[in-house]
C-alpha cells in the first residue's frame, strides 16, 4: 500500500461518476408492468418488456415528468425536442438485443450540483452535470457457478424499469468528495420524490471513472481511465476509489502506462476482498450502433410544460439549509443534519422552531433527543409520538425559564409514552413552580448545613456550588437549578 511508503510524486485524483437512478413510476418505461421490487422471477413481464416479436413500446409520460423535475433541480437545460435511440448489443438479459436509451439528445444537459466540502462545511465544491438521460433497465442474470454446470438463470422483471442516468463532469478530486456528491444527489432525488434511492434494491447504482494526474518533473501525466462498474453503496464507491487510486499509482510506477497509450478499461468492485478486478466486457466491440428508435415518436417538450415543472419544484435542499441557518440562527452542521433527514424532518423542525421561538434550542433537541429516540425505537419522524407542536410548546417553557432542561426531558420522556398535552404531562409529573420563600428557605438551610462548601465557594472554587444545587434538586425536584444557584450565591455573598 502506498500509504505506508513515501510517494515519489504528488498526484491528483480525478473522478467522474455515472449514476443510474430508478425513477419512482408505478409502471415500466414502455409497458404497463409494475416495478415493485422483490416479486417472484419473471412474473412482472409482458410481451413488450419480454421483447416478443411484434410487441411495441409506448412511452410512460410520468418518467418524462420525473426526468424533467430532476434536470431542473440540477440546473440542467431541457431541450425542446428529445428522442429515443436504440443501443444495440447482445446479452441474455437484454431480450430485444437493444436497450431503448437516449443518445445525442438527452432530456437533460449541462447542469451542476453544489456540494458541501466534506472536510470543511463552510465551503462547497461544484460538480458539473454533463447530461442525464432516460433509458430502460435490463434484466438480471444469475450465474450459478457452484452447480458445476455453469447454470445461468435470467429474471426479466427488471427489464424496462425506467432509469435516469446522470453523468457528471470529472470534477471530484477525492473519494470523500465523490461520497459527498452522491449523498447530496441522493438527498436531492428523495427530496424531489423522483426516486426511492433504495440502494440495496438497486434503485441507485454508480459507475466511477477514475484516474490520476501525476506530477513528474514539472509535467502532468495522466494514468489510463478505469471505469468501476455497478456499485450499489456509497461505502463501496468510497472504498473502491481509494483502492483504485493505490492500484493505479502502483501500476503507473510499474508499467508507466498512461492515458495516451492504454485505452479505458472496466473493473468491478469485490466488496468482500476490498479489491477492484478486471471485468469481462459484455460485448465484443463497443460499437453500439445507436440509431433513433422507429417505434417511438420524438418527444416535444413545450416551454409551458417545463416552466410548470420549474414552478412545481419548490425549495431545494441547499436553499432550505441556508434558510434554516439565517431564519432560525442555527449552525450549518445542524441545518445539514436536519435537511439530510428529508422534507418531513424539515417541516417538523420548522414547527418546533416557530412554536418555541428558539431555533437553536429546537435544532439541538431534534439532533439529540428526537433523533436518538427515532434511532432507539426505529421510528420515522412521521410516526414520532411527540408532535412538533407539543415539542415546541415544551421548549417555549424552557426558553422562558418556567421549566428547566432536566424537567423538560422528564416531560419529553412522559410524552413519548403517553398521549396528551405538555400541560397534562407537567401536571401528571407533579411539576409545579416553587414558591420564592420556600426556595429561599431551602437555600438558607443548605448554606447553614454545608460550611465547608460555602468556604470553598467563597474561596473562589465556584464549581463547588454544584453539589449544593444537586442537593436542592434532590430535596425539591421542582426547584429550578438556575434560580437555586443564583439564590445560593446571593446568600453566600451577604
Amino acid at each position, binding site marked *: 500500500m502506498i500509504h505506508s511508503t513515501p510517494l515519489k510524486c504528488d498526484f491528483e485524483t480525478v473522478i467522474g461518476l455515472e449514476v443510474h437512478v430508478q425513477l419512482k413510476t408505478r409502471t415500466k418505461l414502455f409497458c404497463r408492468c409494475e416495478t415493485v421490487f422483490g416479486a417472484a422471477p419473471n412474473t412482472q413481464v409482458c410481451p413488450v418488456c419480454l421483447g416478443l416479436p411484434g410487441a411495441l413500446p409506448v*412511452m410512460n409520460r410520468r418518467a418524462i415528468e420525473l426526468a424533467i423535475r430532476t434536470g431542473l433541480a440540477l440546473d440542467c437545460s431541457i431541450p425542446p425536442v428529445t428522442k429515443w435511440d436504440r443501443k444495440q448489443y447482445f446479452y441474455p438479459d437484454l431480450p*430485444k438485443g437493444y436497450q431503448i436509451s437516449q443518445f445525442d439528445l438527452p432530456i437533460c444537459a449541462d447542469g451542476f450540483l453544489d456540494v458541501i466540502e466534506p472536510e470543511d462545511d463552510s465551503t462547497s465544491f461544484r460538480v458539473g452535470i454533463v447530461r442525464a438521460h432516460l433509458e430502460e433497465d435490463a434484466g438480471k442474470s444469475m450465474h450459478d457457478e457452484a452447480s458445476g454446470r455453469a447454470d445461468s438463470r435470467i429474471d426479466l422483471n427488471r427489464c424496462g424499469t425506467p432509469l435516469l442516468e446522470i453523468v457528471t463532469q470529472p470534477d471530484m478530486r477525492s473519494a470523500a468528495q465523490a461520497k459527498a456528491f452522491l449523498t447530496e444527489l441522493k438527498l436531492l432525488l428523495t427530496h424531489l420524490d423522483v426516486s426511492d434511492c433504495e440502494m440495496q434494491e438497486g434503485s441507485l447504482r454508480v459507475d466511477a471513472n477514475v484516474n490520476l494526474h501525476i506530477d513528474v518533473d514539472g509535467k502532468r501525466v495522466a494514468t489510463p481511465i478505469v471505469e468501476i462498474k455497478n456499485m450499489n453503496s456509497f461505502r463501496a464507491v468510497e472504498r473502491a476509489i481509494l483502492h483504485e487510486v493505490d492500484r493505479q499509482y502502483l501500476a503507473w510506477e510499474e508499467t508507466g502506462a498512461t492515458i495516451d497509450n492504454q485505452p479505458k478499461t472496466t473493473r468491478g468492485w469485490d466488496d468482500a476482498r476490498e479489491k477492484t478486478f478486471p471485468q469481462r466486457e459484455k460485448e465484443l466491440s463497443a460499437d453500439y450502433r445507436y440509431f433513433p428508435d422507429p417505434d417511438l415518436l420524438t418527444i416535444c417538450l413545450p416551454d409551458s410544460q417545463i416552466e410548470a415543472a420549474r414552478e412545481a419544484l419548490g425549495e431545494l435542499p441547499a436553499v432550505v439549509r441556508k434558510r434554516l441557518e439565517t431564519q432560525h440562527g442555527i449552525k450549518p452542521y445542524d441545518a445539514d443534519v436536519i435537511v439530510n433527514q428529508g422534507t418531513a424532518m424539515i417541516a417538523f423542525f420548522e414547527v418546533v422552531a416557530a412554536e418555541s421561538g428558539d431555533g437553536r434550542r429546537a435544532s439541538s433537541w431534534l439532533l439529540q433527543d428526537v433523533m436518538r429516540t427515532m434511532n432507539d425505537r426505529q421510528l420515522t419522524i412521521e410516526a414520532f409520538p411527540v408532535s412538533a407542536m407539543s415539542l415546541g410548546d415544551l421548549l417555549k417553557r424552557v426558553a422562558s425559564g418556567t421549566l428547566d432542561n432536566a424537567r423538560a426531558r422528564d416531560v419529553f420522556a412522559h410524552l413519548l409514552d403517553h398521549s396528551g398535552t405538555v400541560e397534562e404531562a407537567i401536571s401528571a409529573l407533579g411539576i409545579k413552580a416553587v414558591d420564592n420563600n420556600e426556595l429561599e428557605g431551602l437555600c438558607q438551610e443548605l448554606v447553614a448545613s454545608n460550611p465547608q462548601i460555602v468556604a470553598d465557594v467563597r474561596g473562589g472554587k465556584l464549581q463547588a456550588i454544584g453539589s449544593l444545587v444537586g442537593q436542592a434538586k434532590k430535596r425539591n425536584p421542582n426547584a429550578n437549578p438556575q434560580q437555586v444557584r443564583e439564590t445560593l450565591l446571593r446568600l453566600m455573598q451577604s
Partner: protein
Amino acid sequence: MDYSIPLDSACELLRLQAAGELTAVQIATASLESIRASQDTINAYTHIAAENAIATAIDIDRRRAAGEKLGSLAGIPVAVKDVLCTRDMPTTCSSKMLESFRPPYDATVVERLRAADAVLVGKTNMDEFAMGASTENSAFGVTRNPWNCDYTPGGSSGGAAATVAAGHVPLSVGTDTGGSIRQPAAFCGITGMKPTYGRVSRYGLIAFASSLDQAGPMAWNAQDMALLLQAISGYETRDSTSLDVPVDDYVAASNHNSVRGLRIGLIRDAIDHEGLDDEVRRSVKAAVEVFRDAGASIVDVTLPHSGYGVPTYYVIAPCEASSNLSRYDGAHYGYRSRSSEASKSLLSMYCRSRDEGFGAEVKRRIMIGTYALSTGYYDAYYLKALKARRLIRGDYDAAFGHVDLLLGPVTPTPAFRLGEKIDDPIQMYLCDLFTVGANLAGLPAISIPGGQTQHGLPIGIQLHAPPLHESALLSAAAFFQSVTDHHRKRPSR
C-alpha cells in the same frame, strides 16, 4: 368442390348469408377444401386453421340464428400473412427461426378481424421476415402463381395474393414495407392496398422495418377491400406511430365511382423509365385513357428524387431490420442451435443459432444494416438515406399540391419465372422501383388489375394518394373497375 359458393366476393358472401342461402360453415368448408386441394401446387399457406375456422363458422351461424348482431365480416374466410401474431396459430414469418413460435397474443389486426367475425382460415406463406419479392425466400417452400405455376406470385405477401387469386378466400391481409402487398397483387391480378403509415396498428406485426411496415387489404375488387380496410383501420394506443385520426367511411367511398373533375398526375419518371416493360407501359397508358374519358384531367408529374428510392430504401430497411431481428438470438424463444459448437459459449450459441435459423436473404440484409449503422458509416449511409427520404417525401408533397392522385405502374415487369432472379439480389431489389416511394413517404397506394400480357399474366397499375386519402384511392379503383373487367379475369383451375 362447390363452385356455386362465390369465394371471390366478400360482399356476395355477406348477402347470401343474410338471405339465408348460405351458412358460414358451408363457406368455411368450401374455402378450406379449395385451400387443401391446391396446397401441394400453390403452397399459399404455412398453417391451415381448419378446426378453428369451422368452430368459428359454427358459432357465427348459431349467433345469426339467435338473431345476434354480427360483425362486418361475419362468416367471410380471411387469410392472414404469417407475419401477424395469432394466439391460436403458429406465427413463423416463414422462418426456421420462428418455426415453433406461438405468440401469447393476437396482433391488433387479428383482434379486429375476430371482432368483425371474420373466419380466419390460416396463415399465408411469405418471404422470410417479409424480405423478398418472390416468396422464394420462405423456409417452408416457394408459393406459386395461380395464373401459371412456373411463375412467382411476387412477394413478400405472395401467399396472401395467391390464395385470393386461386379463389380460396375473397380477402387476405398482407403487409407492405417496400411493395410487398402491391407487387404480389399486381402479379396475381388482384387489388391490394398499402394504407397510410399509421392507419393500421402495427401492434403484433412482426417488424421488418418499423418506419416502413404497414398491413393492408388484398381482394379482387375495391368494394371487398373497403370492407376489410374498414375492419382493420384505426387508432390504437399500443402502437405509438398509430394515427389518432377518425377513420373514413371506406365502404361508402368504394361505392362512389365518379372521377369527373379529378386531377390525376401521370408519373413521367416511371412511365418513361427504361426498365419498364412495354406491356406494362401500354396498360398504364390505357388506364390514362379510361380516366380521361370519364372526365378526369391528366397532367404529367415528375418526382425528381424517385431515382434515389431503391438505394434509400435498401439502406433504411436493412438498418432497421438489423436491429429488429437482434431479438432472435436463441436465448428466450425461437430456434436455438443444437450443434456441439453452440454449447461451447454464449457467443457461439448466438452465432450458430442465427446462422442456422436465418436464411440467406435475411442474413444479407442484417449484414448490410449492421454495416451501415456502424461507427464511421452511419453518416454516409443511414443519415444520408434519411435525408434522401425527406427529399422523396418532398417530391410527393409538391406533386399533391396540384393533383389529387398519382398514376403509374406497380412493377417494372409482370410476374417473372421462379428461380429467375433468386441468385441476383440487385435484380430482385429493382422489382421495388415503383413501390418503395409510398413507403418512404408514408403514403397510401393501391395496385389495381390493369391488363394482361400476351401470355396471360396479370399486369397492375398503381395509384398514390396524399396521406389518409384511402377513400380517394377506393373511389378511383371502384370507378376503374366499373368500366373495365381486368379484375374479373380468373386463372383457369
